[in-house]
């Protein structure tokens, strides 16, 4: 059973020996995670929904999650895994649309050239796309990406290398296609 402070949520020990609350983690990580999920899902609404669900899952298991060396890594893993399923994305988006009906404004849309980059990223094999967003959007070093994805540093490097090759080709084709139109 989670014993949560109503104002700040449950607490955890961080690597500095100080304590931080669930809410601190949320404030620190939520925005980055939404960006991650957005890059992978292509849907802002779905991204927000997925991040909410990830934090809710963390909250409900806080005694366990807070004991991890890096609870944020657990959240990243949940979010990147949840973001790449087409069906889950659709359902998350449908839920989010209902929830967001009461919100007065929706976030802005990405410029077309940036949107094209993320479309190309989403077209990559699943693991490659996850590595790309973790590396570029979340600025994670190779070792931390490996930790999030549960694989070796070498595997991450391989995925990143191949992703770059595919992206270079895809974006070049896109540029040529755009120029011809």
């Amino acid at each position, binding site marked *: *059973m989670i014993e949560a402070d109503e104002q700040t949520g449950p607490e955890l020990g961080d690597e500095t020996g100080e304590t931080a609350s669930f809410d601190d983690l949320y404030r620190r990580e939520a925005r980055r995670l939404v*960006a991650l999920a957005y*890059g992978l899902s292509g849907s802002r609404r779905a991204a927000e929904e997925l991040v909410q669900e990830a934090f809710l899952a963390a909250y*409900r298991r806080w005694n366990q999650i807070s004991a991890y060396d890096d609870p944020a890594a657990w959240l990243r893993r949940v979010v990147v895994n949840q973001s790449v399923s087409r069906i889950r994305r659709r359902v*998350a988006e449908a839920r989010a649309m209902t*929830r967001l009906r009461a919100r007065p404004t929706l976030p802005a849309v990405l410029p077309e050239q940036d949107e094209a*980059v993320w479309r190309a990223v989403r077209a990559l094999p699943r693991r490659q796309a996850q590595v790309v967003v973790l590396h570029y959007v979340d600025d994670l070093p190779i070792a931390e990406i490996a930790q999030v994805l549960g694989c070796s540093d070498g595997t991450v490097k391989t995925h990143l290398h191949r992703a770059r090759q595919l992206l270079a080709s895809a974006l070049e084709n896109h540029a040529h296609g755009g120029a011809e139109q």
Partner: protein
Amino acid sequence: MTADLDTTLRGAAGALRDSVAPNSAGPPPRPSSAPILTATALVVVAAILAAAVAFWPNNDKDTTVPSSDVSTKGHVVVPRLIPDHVPDGYVVSGASDPSEMVGEAAATGPVSRTVLYGDSGADDPFAHSDLQTSTTRWPEDTNFDGGSGMPPEGHGHEVTVRGHTGVACAPDECIGEVMATLYWPEEEPLFDVRLTSRSLDIDQLQQVAEDLTFEGDYAVVGSPPSDVDGPLDELARSQPNDLPLVATGYSINYAPPHNIPGGPTLQVSTGEGGESNLLMTRWLAGEWRRVEVRGHEGSISVKEERAGGGPDRQTAITLLWEEEPGVIAQVTTLMSPLTEDEVLQVAESLRPATDEEWAAALQVDDPPDPANYGQYIPTDVVASVNTTGMGSAAYLTADGQLCGYVVDSEGKLPDVCGSADDRVLVLADRGGNVHTYFGRVPEGTDSVAGVSPEYPDSHPMMYAFLDRQDEPPEVPHQLYAWVPAGGPLPTELQFLADGVVLEAVPVP
């Protein structure tokens, strides 16, 4: 070009980050004040939702269909029963009772509404035609996975239903589904829809789906396909929020120690209900017969099933009876090798639990979280595979050592190592039972299958993990890890490419 690409990606990443407003994710989420529904309990809820929905008859239909025992609701004291006889190798793995379930089910749990169809004029209304429609409305702050009612990724095949992306499962194609099943999310209104039938195939279910109408949250069949073998008369509808074993019932669960997801389970449940539940169970069970249990006439269904096309044989047994007027009791096994006699023994040994016994069962924790299973993989390996959710991992070092390990709720077990050429190495759990097979696959392998005496033609593994790295032919050190989920173990593993066996290796 690389530098340009890097700049492009960093620019796009910056735009992505900038587009996410600081408060874009909303306020920190909070669950309702209802108690936590654990992952184990979610499985229990799903099983009970499927197995114990109370039905009432359509008044215009055959009167042989029993009515729901609405009059008993709220006036029945439901006992908490636990068995004195627990099968060898099983321990308490959790429990649930109304103090946990009512608030959760009402406040944050799913609400399902089902309609059952069959031949209202037949002695066996499901002999030639049957169909259940089910809608599930998920609460906004749910922590269920998105696509909640959908089968896991990799199970079933994607279809378009009423303009929505859904999943179709032929019998045995998806974990836990032995009937033809069609799932899809409806957005207006917002809920998951599921059609299930033994007699209709996927094409017929799709025809039914296209002609469905919604009466509130009930999915109602319009014109059934003309080629169905019998009529699809509406026999009963579930009453929302009248889910006896969930809202008013008690369940205690048993499983082997360190059980993995999808492993064997035994559950004893009690709750409000009556003859209508027997009808529902009869449909779910498909084949059943009457037995005497604890001095009552009960129904039992014994099925040997395999889930997800895997090589493991599991027995699913449902034993249900009316323990006393207005109270039904149920003993169920899933994916378990337990026999009918053992289940009857469990039932005959039931007695009211003491407060201390029940409190202890409620305190049993979740299975260990799978997120960090890969954390023990050394950083300098050339390949690795992590059976996320299944509690093991394997890796290959640069100097040619192929190693694996198991992680359970007590921590990491010692590494088991072999050479880089080993095809099949075995990891055991703390009890010495086989937990994981792992090894290096022949180059070009795209799947691994198991052969056992029960499944001599082999079947793809249910819980197999290949470190695919997305382009298997280019990865010379591709590893696999397979966690068999109970049942018979394979005697041989086959490594396949495009369905062709590249190599077959006896299991040590």
